[in-house]
């Protein structure tokens, strides 16, 4: 029973990331509620180690966001996140599911845009960790001679959808190209650029929303994240493709949809499977066609 208390207490002290008040004893011992005498310097080592590990892990998972936010501010964000979001995953690679939402609720400048970029980062990261899917080009032959109601599709490993108020692909590409062109481009410049982008795409929409423009309320950008081999890719797609892919990505295991059924369920009439299929095969968004049982 003592051990349970000790371990819970030590973990909460470490996650608090707070330096404990020094006791009178110069030997830096802390008396705590459950009679633990903890070495203050030792506690700080564990706190710093947790923060360093968390920052390292989230810098890998949220690589683009981290580069745009900058090392110091990103570390501060991770620290606040640690204090609010205990690590409930044993694998650092899986931790950070709520980091994008956390950024959106933070006081960081341009938080809405940065949060959406973080969500895209997380989607890419998860996609890259997904179970490998074998590309079965031979199975595509089924499309030529089998009824669409007998066929189902398998998308590439870890494919997932995302929507945002911002054209994330264009924004990231623009920032990367400008900073790549100008090696001395500082974080300050990047922040200015993000502020411009945020105002251009985000604030304008909000402003128009306030004027109750239904057209602008619906202004959203749609993205598919997928993995042809090991590295995740993303691209902007239109609403009809988003709806089409949603049918495949949101299906439950008990419900194997056929291509025919999926087409019947499509509310958008703008989607053309004839146009979509060759592109999806070429980009390896489609891994296989299978016969539906």
């Amino acid at each position, binding site marked *: *029973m*003592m*051990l*349970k208390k*000790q*371990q*819970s207490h*030590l*973990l*909460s002290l*470490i*996650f608090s990331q707070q330096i404990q008040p020094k006791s009178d*004893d110069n*030997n*830096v*011992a802390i008396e705590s509620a459950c*009679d*633990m*005498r*903890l*070495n203050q*310097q*030792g*506690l700080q*080592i*564990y706190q710093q*180690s*947790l923060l360093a*590990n*968390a920052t390292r892990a989230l810098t890998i998972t949220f690589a683009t966001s981290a580069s745009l936010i900058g090392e110091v501010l990103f570390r501060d964000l991770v620290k606040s996140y640690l204090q609010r979001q*205990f*690590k*409930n*995953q*044993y*694998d*650092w*690679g*899986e931790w950070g599911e709520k980091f994008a939402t956390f950024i959106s609720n933070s006081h960081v400048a341009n938080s809405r845009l940065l949060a959406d970029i973080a969500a895209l980062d997380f989607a890419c990261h998860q996609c*890259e*960790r*997904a*179970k*490998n*899917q074998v590309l079965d080009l031979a199975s595509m032959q089924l499309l030529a001679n089998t009824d669409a109601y007998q066929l189902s599709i398998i998308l590439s*490993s*870890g494919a997932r959808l995302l929507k945002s108020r911002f054209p994330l692909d264009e924004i990231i590409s623009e920032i990367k190209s400008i900073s790549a062109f100008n090696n001395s481009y500082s974080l300050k410049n990047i922040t200015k650029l993000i502020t411009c982008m945020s105002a251009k795409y985000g604030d304008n929409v909000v402003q128009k929303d306030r004027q109750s423009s239904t057209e602008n309320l619906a202004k959203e950008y749609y993205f598919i994240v997928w993995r042809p081999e*090991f*590295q995740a890719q993303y691209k902007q797609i239109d609403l009809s493709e988003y709806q089409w892919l949603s049918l495949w990505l949101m299906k439950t295991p008990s419900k194997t949809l056929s291509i025919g059924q999926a087409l019947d369920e499509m509310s958008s009439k703008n989607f053309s499977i004839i146009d979509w299929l060759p592109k999806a095969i070429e980009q390896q968004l489609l891994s296989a066609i299978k016969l539906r049982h």
Partner: protein
Amino acid sequence: MLCLNKQTPIDFPLIGVGLRHGHYNEALNTPANIDFIEVHAENFFSAGGASHSLLTDIKQHYDISLHATSLGLGSNLLAPQKQLQQLANLASIYQPIMISDHACFSWADVNSQAVHGGDLLPIPFNDESLQVMVNNVLRAQSILKRTILVENLSAYMALPGSIYTETEFLVKLCELTDCKLLVDINNIVVNAINHSLIYPRGETVLPIDYAKNWLNNIPAKYVGELHLAGCTRVAEEQLMIDDHAQPVSADVWTLYRYALARFGAVATLIEWDENLPSWQTLLAEADKAKEIAKAVFTAKVEATK
């Protein structure tokens, strides 16, 4: 990847190095006279992706040792079954020559929530913690269907309630579970250096004497692997951190000789995690371990003639 394929002579220890991200390319393309590669198991916990392709390539040329850092074998709160199963799946795919984790805790209940500390946190050495660790080790061994190695910790605080020394605790753990020990020599040295700061009224100890005494208290039959590493020097009154950021220290090499003479040809690993050197520098450390092993065991053979 090329392997020099120099067979380690019988009765010589297997010598390996820890593989870290910065060395992936070189490890796959540079000849290496090493017997095994140790990887951190959690780096390969993803369901798929590039990491598995890498490990498959490594496995074609070297034996693999899986070193876990997240089980928290001393945790009062049970690790999730899924976590152990993931390690078991990894073991089943890559058939490691060794699986290890640490004598520490990681899991605890905080505000009615299972929280993982993301670190190797110290435990007191008493009957309660021993029983917890025995149960956790037996559970892990049952799921993994093999014995595991448990590594001694470098600890930066001492939790109250210990009634055993660290070595007494670890020996009892081996007796009760059949697990073996991964003796990290640098961790012993770090604990010795930090001794007077961790135990406020404790005396300063000489690292070599402290470590030799520590090693003398462990029966050779319980030692399955040795870890060698170096860490960054710190100012007086500062705790030394086991950062694995430097070459193996002179003290650790001295103690390695001593440990080999005492424990026999035990598999040995060079750990270097931070401030990564070139791949060749890391391999040179492994060569040095081989030279020491050769000297120790040649002398032993000569002595028996």
